[in-house]
């Protein structure tokens, strides 16, 4: 699972470097953040661990997965939503101002 996270992050970085269309850049940033979140959760998982919720059937178990990375991911997802919201607002205003979504065309004007 660690490899999946890192591969997603690198796909996001590649998309960010090669694209000049604003919406595609925002999508690449989202892929980057998703990859990071998957990597964080994978750090908290060991061999044969179960979900960290106490129920009647597993009240005496000892092999729970690490709950701390999962809490960090909850926060990181919400922060990602916040930054995507303002990025999209700025993208909308840029389209209003320049009439195009392409960065190279905007820098030319």
């Amino acid at each position, binding site marked *: 699972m*660690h*490899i999946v996270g*890192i*591969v997603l992050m*690198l796909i996001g*970085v*590649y998309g960010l*470097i*090669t694209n000049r269309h604003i919406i595609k850049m925002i999508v690449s940033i989202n892929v980057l953040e998703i990859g990071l979140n998957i990597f964080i959760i*994978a*750090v*908290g998982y*060991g061999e044969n*661990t179960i*979900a*960290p*919720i*106490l*129920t*009647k059937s597993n009240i005496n178990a000892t092999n*729970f*997965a*690490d*709950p*701390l*990375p*999962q*809490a960090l991911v*909850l*926060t990181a*997802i*919400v*922060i990602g*939503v*916040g*930054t995507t*919201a*303002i990025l*999209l*607002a*700025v993208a*909308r*205003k840029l389209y*209003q101002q320049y009439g195009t979504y392409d960065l190279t065309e905007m820098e030319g004007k």
Partner: protein
Amino acid sequence: MKKLVAVLLVGLMLLLLFINMFDGSLEFNKMDLADVDGNYYAKNPIVSNMVTSVVVDYRSFDTLGEVTVLFVSSLGVAFMLGGLTTRIKFKHDDSFFLRIGVKVLFPIIVIVGVFMFVHGHLTPGGGFPGGALIGGAMLFKYISDSKYRAKISAFKVLEGTMGSIYVLLGIVGILVGNYFLQNILDIGELGNLISGGLIPIIYVLIGLKVGSELTGIFDHFMNEEV
């Protein structure tokens, strides 16, 4: 040309990461799960859902920061798109199925969302996904009807009040128990709905706050200039 350079750069990073952090059989080498800090949280849960007890009790300050991030994002969207006042008209007519479907689905989605944040300390989920579901239900209403506008002022008052109550609960913790954001109510029995002290209350506050904030953001995006 640029794509080639990008591919090479990314491949280089991948290679560096693999050489340094992974051992021979492509397993990530990390500490044993029994020695990590998170193990303490697993051994001393306050409510049944261990992740909830970490997010709302042990690391409550981080959750306050996260609520603030969402708040400042909604303020930022209001600042950028604040001048737009009339509802966007879609290029297609309203769909009949969508309109009727919303009447059935909207209450169901809202109930699922409310269930999620009220039971956040017993089942997976909690305030943030529950609030997002409520925001999603409102977005559903916006999409199905091209003349619909929610009462944004009521949602803004809800958002501000919930946030202030969260911070005030923390300050009450200083006055009553000597530490900020201390859990001052009775913990109760593990597994009951009314247990965990302040934790279900905070999750209800967060769920309502996130729902109203997302509704406000969607409303700003659904407007355009005259």
